[in-house]
């Protein structure tokens, strides 16, 4: 497992990670351009990644983890900017459901991200300045194409599994749809085959908050030496509410006041929930690039797997031999169970092998990142069964 020296959190560290990351990188030169959905050919470009465990001799034990909107490749190691543990150490590690003693686990920073892969904070080789909004719009399918090129780089023909939640789950579905023969098993958690109107609406609020901040400077804040701190912070605050549930919020914070006995008849953070959200917003700015947030949210908005197949989602999986595991959470209102059920029904209609579990929890969308024993046992059972079928585990 990769360890980093104790990081000093802050904006400098963050820009450092965008251009010169701690993670290993693969540079794809002009001979290997990436053809984006926008019609633009991106070249050269870079993908930063983390890996855990060993690739076996026939390269059949690779699991690709796809990270979510504000996630990154630091799945199971200390984060170089925040100093916190990996975001999925509950699921990925030695002896865990995704067992790094058994599998070669790979996670790359998505294209358009800000932890080392080419994104708006990377330097545009033509101008020598950050790309900012000159970078083409990136789609979920583009992210997956870049991941496929990384897999090629490792000489892996077929991934044993692709696993991800939320935006990561969208990538999983895209992988299974457009690179079906390269995916033996797919685990899509708290996700959907499209972004709903309500979800687009929340993303638009976030983007407008970023762009309304005068420090955003039409996206050129890195050159201007400013940070649209308030804008990105408000975007994160609004988004964070959608990751939780009303029940969980009320249980955690209720109407409790923050370090005071009475309300102040002012606009300070009187309530604990206000203080909590402000903290979430500010700490997010320290680790995430504002323009990258615009690109990531746009990628999710544009995702609509059925639309790519004349509105028939089942056709997106026609003839698929991939084994699917779909997981949803009862209190997730961002990607409610109905979205997962739509995917499961489409997979049924396509004759694909599918497991679909709904986990009872009041912790909302973020439950996929938390300690949810029933989710772990479902994923563990699914992965073990798939590993037996793939000959990676003795029956």
């Amino acid at each position, binding site marked *: 497992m990769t360890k980093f020296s104790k990081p000093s959190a802050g904006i400098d560290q963050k820009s450092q990670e965008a251009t010169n990351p701690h993670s290993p990188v693969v540079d794809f030169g002009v001979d290997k351009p990436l053809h984006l959905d926008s019609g633009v050919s991106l070249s050269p470009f870079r993908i930063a990644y983390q890996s855990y465990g060993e690739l076996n001799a026939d390269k059949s034990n690779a699991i690709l983890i796809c990270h979510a909107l504000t996630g990154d490749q630091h799945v199971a190691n200390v984060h170089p900017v925040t100093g916190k543990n990996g975001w999925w150490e509950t699921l990925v590690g030695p002896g865990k459901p995704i067992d790094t003693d058994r599998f070669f686990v790979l996670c790359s920073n998505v294209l358009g991200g800000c932890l080392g892969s080419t994104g708006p904070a990377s330097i545009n080789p033509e101008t020598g300045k950050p790309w900012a909004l000159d970078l083409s719009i990136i789609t979920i399918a583009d992210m997956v194409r870049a991941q496929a090129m990384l897999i090629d780089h490792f000489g892996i023909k077929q991934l044993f599994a692709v696993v991800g939640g939320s935006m990561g789950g969208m990538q999983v579905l895209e992988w299974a749809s457009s690179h079906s023969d390269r995916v033996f098993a797919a685990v899509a958690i708290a996700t959907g085959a499209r972004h709903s109107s309500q979800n687009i609406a929340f993303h638009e609020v976030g983007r407008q908050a970023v762009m309304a901040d005068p420090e955003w400077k039409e996206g050129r804040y890195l050159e201007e030496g400013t940070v649209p701190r308030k804008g990105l912070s408000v975007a994160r605050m609004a988004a964070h509410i959608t990751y939780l549930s009303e029940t969980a919020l009320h249980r955690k914070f209720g109407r409790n006041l923050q370090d005071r006995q009475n309300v102040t008849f002012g606009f300070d953070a009187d309530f604990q929930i206000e203080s909590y959200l402000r903290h979430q917003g500010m700490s997010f700015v320290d680790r995430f690039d504002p323009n990258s947030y615009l690109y990531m949210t746009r990628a999710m908005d544009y995702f609509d797997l059925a639309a790519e197949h004349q509105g028939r989602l089942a056709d997106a999986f026609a003839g698929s031999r991939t084994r699917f595991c779909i997981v949803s959470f009862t209190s997730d209102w961002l990607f409610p169970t109905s979205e997962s059920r739509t995917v499961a029904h489409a997979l049924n209609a396509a004759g694909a092998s599918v*497991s679909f579990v709904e986990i009872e929890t009041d912790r909302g969308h973020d439950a996929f990142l938390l300690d949810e024993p029933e989710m772990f046992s479902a994923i563990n*059972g699914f992965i*073990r069964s798939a590993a037996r079928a793939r000959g990676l585990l003795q029956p």
Partner: protein
Amino acid sequence: MSVNTTPRVDFDVIASLVNPGARVLDVGCGDGELLELLQNTKNVDGRGVELSQKGVNESVARGLSVIQGDADSDLKYYPDAGFDYVILSQTLQATRNPKNVLTELLRIGEKAIVSFPNFGHWRMRASLLVNGRMPVTEELPYSWYDTPNIHFCTISDFVDMTKEIGAQVETAVALNAFGQRIGFNMPWGFWNLFGQQAVFLLRR
């Protein structure tokens, strides 16, 4: 959705009717016990649908391909003839529209295997005759007001329905109260009286 709490004597009979390596859909698969048995002994390509989330989660943890769904409303999502066998074990009597469900089974599968408790069994008849109350037995322990079994039928009723939907009975097995098979040469009326459970293999 499977609602019988006693040991499943019908499982071995069902397994004996399934060809090795077949594509099987188990509708109302419970915690996946039958599917696991079929995978281990018949090497089937098995899938399941189960109404209770608990059953689904237990099945998936066993490594089975099972989704949450309702036999009455969710079979329409399956393509025609996608399976060699569709199994409905101890679930028919709990569906809202058994005739429609049976028709769907034979659309999705080349063959359907249906097992159900026989309400024509002599003990049921005796219980109603003597006590004048809806029978509550060891095998069917529910009172009339809390039972998930809303559409009981007898073997004779079931045979009538297969005719109505144009299904052919390929094999029929009746099990007595001890889980033993009742002689094949006995008439339906005898089965209907002494068969506590019935397993039918149907084809279109």
